[in-house]
């Protein structure tokens, strides 16, 4: 029951081109006044410096998981979030961030030293390979209308 309290929101980007973040900031053109009243942006790097990862109502995850550090971070976000939503193709299906998973042997050899140098995972993972998701909005980038539909649905659930 969160009638009047603002919903605590987090937006996290892993391995991707951050196209959904751009769409998100474009949606703000029409919704910023409404969202300012509705949301407490606790951890949204594109919007603020002082980000806090504490208990969140909704965590939006864009991007695929490319390292153990990514996976650990995602698990931490999962534990601290009531709802976790995968946003965009890289988070939902892994691609195109996971394109190296499908390289041939020659291509794999070419990138091997870099994968090792930066301790990347042998295969790039989609979000649901690592944690349970409560909802998903696919697309490359996400469809703004579908994102709004999902956000409104979640807000209605929290306000029950």
């Amino acid at each position, binding site marked *: 029951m969160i009638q009047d309290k603002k919903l605590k929101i987090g937006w996290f980007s892993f391995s991707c081109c951050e*196209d*959904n973040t751009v769409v998100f900031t474009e949606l703000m053109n029409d919704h910023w006044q409404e969202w300012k009243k509705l949301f407490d942006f606790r951890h949204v790097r*594109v*919007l603020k410096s002082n*980000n806090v990862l504490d208990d969140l109502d909704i965590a939006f995850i864009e991007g695929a998981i490319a390292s153990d*550090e990514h996976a650990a971070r995602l698990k931490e976000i999962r534990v601290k979030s009531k709802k976790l939503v995968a946003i965009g193709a890289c988070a939902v299906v892994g691609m195109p961030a996971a394109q190296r998973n499908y390289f041939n042997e020659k291509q794999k050899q070419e990138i091997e030293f870099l994968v090792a140098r930066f301790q*990347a995972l042998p295969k790039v993972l989609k979000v649901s390979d690592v944690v349970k998701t409560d909802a998903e909005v696919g697309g490359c*980038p996400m469809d703004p209308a579908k994102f709004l539909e999902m956000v409104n649905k979640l807000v209605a659930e929290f306000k029950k």
Partner: protein
Amino acid sequence: MWPRSSINERTMHNTDFDLKLDRLTKVEGSASLDIRVKNGQVEYAHFQITEYKRFFTQAMQRKPIIALPQLLSRICGTCSNAHIMASIEACEHALDIKPSEQTKILRDLTMYGLNIRDHALHLYLFALPDVRGKDAFLDFDENDPVEHQMLHDAFEIKAAGNFFSELIAGRSVHAPYPVIGGFMHFPDQKGITEAIKKFEAVRPAVLRTIEIYKNQPFHFDRKTNFMALVPYDHYGFIEGCINTGLGECITEEGYRDHLERVVLPYSQASGYKYRGGAYMVGALARMNLAKNLLHARTKDASGGALDIFPSTDIYMSNLAQAIEILHCLDHSLEILKTRKFNPEPIIKKPFREAVGIGVVEAPRGTLYHKVVVGADGMVKEGEIIVPTGQNQINIENDVAALVEKMLPDTSQEKMQFEIEKLIRAYDPCMSCAAHFLKVKWLEP
């Protein structure tokens, strides 16, 4: 005023220390910074682009050339439409396709929509909180007349750019209309009329943006070299030769001989030098090298702001971006009011074995695409050089100079704030430009 209240205020009396601005322990992001100071001198400043590689130069191999621009668009969401333009140009050069005049104009307009939207995002959501001493743009006070105006101006300018990108290119991000050989869709009169209305309505807001950054309180001067693709006729982002800032203008095809790649082992990206020296690309470079080509209406309205250029003050990159927004509006308005757009067929040519180079000015600077294609129309290999890679060494040199300037009596918190602010002025990219740094002080 300083946003990092969690960091204890300390004063730097010791002039030997390691400074680690690390994204790993606090927020995900794509950059961090390591600095070592000995005897009051910066031994090194390493700006690390830590976004995990997605290996697009390998992934493009064996892809059909017609699919290439949309694939490479996924390198960067923020600049995706610039990647599409650079890739299309490279592919057309490889296939010997010469675009129609209308296509060239629609491509100019695509870049204008991108720059309006993207510069406004940087100037308002990223940079303006520093100017106003706030943590976040959304913290601005709607009851304060100045900040109220800024809030509304920001989202109106961004919305106008977004609308225009959708009208011309189909979308602000990964635009679907522009393809090799032309456009898949053409703006209708209703949309054009609406765009004119929106642009005229938002123009006073853009003039206010110029005023804000003309009078911004920050300055950091350090002599460096500037490089940009400078057009032959009007200020733009697609055509021209590469002005090295050293009295040369080299053709797009000759770019590779002039850039020296510097592999930085601590970074996921590559740094670049020209004639052994660092250089800067982006709005400041463009304004320094090509302000005489701006639209006449922009020149008239910019007043004294234009007299500031050429400038070596990195913060004037913000002002250059604001002026570029005005140019994009003014030139678009002239085009929209004076010409009609008619459906045209896509130009197609048989595949051939060839190399194609595409060079454009992305919002953050010169973007190079190279494609090697086989007679079967499949990509053999390619190369991409992005603006942030080119600016990396210059950023490091600037940070080193800034830290030395602040030594020995600046608090850690203030130093962190100033470093972040300086890097932000480069507008490196969405994942870097926002707020990504955490300081670890490792004093010996």
